């Protein structure tokens, strides 16, 4: 059990010019916390994790585990366990040997290893497979062995690098819940890397969003969703993505096609001096209203039926350009393709404004 902190830690890949894969990352993870690092590919999330594991150099700054500076400590001295995307199971060892390998290296007595492996196997429903080689296991079973290998160690920190990305969709959802429950039960500090924001939102106590090696925001899933710190986070978190459009503003509010969306005093103050802002609104905060009412004119271009609800994609004119909007509507009565509908903002408190250039959230 330990807390983890990144202190302005950077990883710089040599090249011309050098690439700052992780740039002055500062992050505090408290003991027992489940932290998810999320970001698009190339955002540096895996590199950040590997720095913590000791598999990448820390070129600047430092990393502490349990209050101890481990910047120059090799992986084996960090008391961590890692689950790899490819699982990295040792092909020449059985499941039991794979799980007990780290303990064997530490000189733990055989009987104790056996007991621990069996306990972990029971937890993960692997008892039947202990004598098999990884090759003879299914993808889901391999994933569980990789988890087991980490658990048996009883490390102070678990590191997981996209551990679910090689599973099919159904199994992924199932395993997602299992991992979260397991972490809850063991109470071990866990850093989890994923590119899937749904995984991030459902699993993490807190989620850190990275882009281009820079930490964008780190907060609880709810806070990320409700108050994204910038346009990138707003667009990245949530599915389908938030509608983000550059729109002109005036003292009354933001001007969209045919309507003016009123803005709060404080928001207007924050946007003081700007004549345009990046206007963000989630699909569920929009709604289709009867044709008589006030709203934007939208031509339906695509309807994605999800069952409980439907996503309507359509074009709306803003200024001279036609912009695409997504609206979440009730699944039983979706509009048809090509239909002209009126779209209105259902809830003005769910409007997010960002600086049109810097992308920073505008808010008092």
């Amino acid at each position, binding site marked *: 059990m330990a807390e983890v902190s990144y202190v302005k830690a950077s990883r710089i890949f040599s090249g011309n010019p050098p690439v700052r894969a992780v740039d002055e990352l500062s992050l505090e993870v408290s003991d027992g916390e489940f932290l998810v690092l999320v970001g698009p590919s190339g955002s540096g999330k895996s590199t950040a994790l590997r720095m913590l594991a*000791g598999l990448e150099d820390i070129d600047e700054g430092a990393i502490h585990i349990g209050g101890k500076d481990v910047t120059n400590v090799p992986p084996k001295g960090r008391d961590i366990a890692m689950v790899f995307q490819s699982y990295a199971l040792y*092909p*020449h060892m059985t499941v039991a040997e794979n799980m007990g390998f780290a303990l064997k290296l530490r000189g733990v007595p055989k009987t104790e290893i056996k007991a621990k492996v069996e306990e972990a196997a029971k937890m993960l429903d692997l008892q039947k497979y202990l004598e098999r080689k990884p090759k003879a296991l299914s993808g889901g079973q391999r994933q569980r062995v990789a988890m087991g*290998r980490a658990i048996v*160690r009883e490390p102070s920190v678990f590191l997981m690098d996209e551990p679910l990305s090689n599973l099919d969709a159904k199994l992924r959802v199932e395993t997602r819940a299992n991992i979260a429950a397991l972490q809850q039960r063991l109470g071990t500090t866990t850093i989890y890397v994923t590119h899937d924001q749904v995984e991030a939102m459902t699993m993490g106590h807190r989620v850190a969003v990275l882009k281009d090696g820079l930490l964008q925001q780190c907060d609880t899933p709810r806070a990320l969703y409700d108050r994204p710190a910038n346009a990138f986070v707003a667009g990245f978190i949530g599915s389908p993505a938030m509608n983000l459009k550059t729109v002109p503003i005036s003292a009354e509010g933001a001007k969209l096609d045919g309507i003016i969306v009123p803005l709060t005093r404080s928001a207007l103050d924050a946007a003081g001096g700007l004549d345009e802002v990046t206007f963000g609104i989630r699909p569920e905060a929009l709604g289709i209203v009867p044709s008589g009412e006030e709203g934007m004119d939208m031509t339906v271009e695509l309807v994605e039926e999800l069952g409980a609800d439907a996503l309507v994609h359509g074009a709306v004119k803003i200024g001279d350009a036609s912009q695409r909007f997504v609206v979440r509507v009730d699944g039983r009565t979706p509009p048809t393709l090509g239909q002209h509908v009126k779209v209105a903002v259902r809830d003005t408190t769910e409007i997010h404004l960002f600086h049109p250039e810097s992308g920073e959230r505008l808010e008092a």
Partner: protein
Amino acid sequence: MTLDASSLKVVQAGGNRLRRTDRSKGASVALHATLIVASIIAVFPVFWVFVTSLKPDARAVEPTPKLFNESSLDNYTRVLSGEKGDFLAWFGNSVVIALMTTVIGVFISATAGYAASRFRFPGKRGLMMSFLLVQMFPFAVLIVPLYNILIALGLNGTSFGLVLVYCTTAVPFCTYMLKGYFDTVPSDIDEAGRVDGLSPFGVFWRLIMPLAKPGLAVTSFYAFLTAWGEVAFASAFLSAADESKTLAVGLQVFVQQNRTEWGHLAAASILVAIPAIVVFYLVQRFLVQGLASGAVKG
């Protein structure tokens, strides 16, 4: 979804099988005929040596060779009894030298190949290039300087000196092969090992070596053969005493200036070939895989 994919595959495999059994009779016959002819050509010289090894020397040079001609095991008994030279001592020397070359050569190639596969370090490119360069020079003409060095190291006339010389011949190819083979082992495995508590050397020894069996099999085979059948260095570097010769050197006694004892030479050759063929048989199922991954990545 998974069900669909797997059932599709079954259909495809079934389709292939159907077409393969559909290969016309003529094509099948031609295929087998070609392979049989090729196999006969491949095996025949060895077979013919075997046939000859059973004949007395005089019968071996008759103008109309026959399969059997006063054939017996006499040549073998005479060779093994040491009548023509200490065959068993030569054999023992060859085994020791070839095994030492294999173990040392493959081990140092493996460490170098692993470093070249996993680490980026200054000088790596130069090292790999120098291996290619080493293959280009006919080193046998350097027997004189080599001899001087072995004297300087106090290794002249010893088996170990000869083993080191053989290693220089075997190592470049083995390193290339093993580097290529290690490249096919995902580096995640190394990292998992590091996290589990291994040092870089521990990773190499406990994870990578056991996983590289096919690559190690090919390179062992190569190193073994390099040492097993070599003549020039062996005759130059080992002392002239009969009991310190290797097989390849010792067998020259059957080739006199004007008369070759074909029967005896054949019998001795078969005896020499047997260990090589045994080694070959042990590793042959790894050869294709091992050589391919080595050469593909080269």
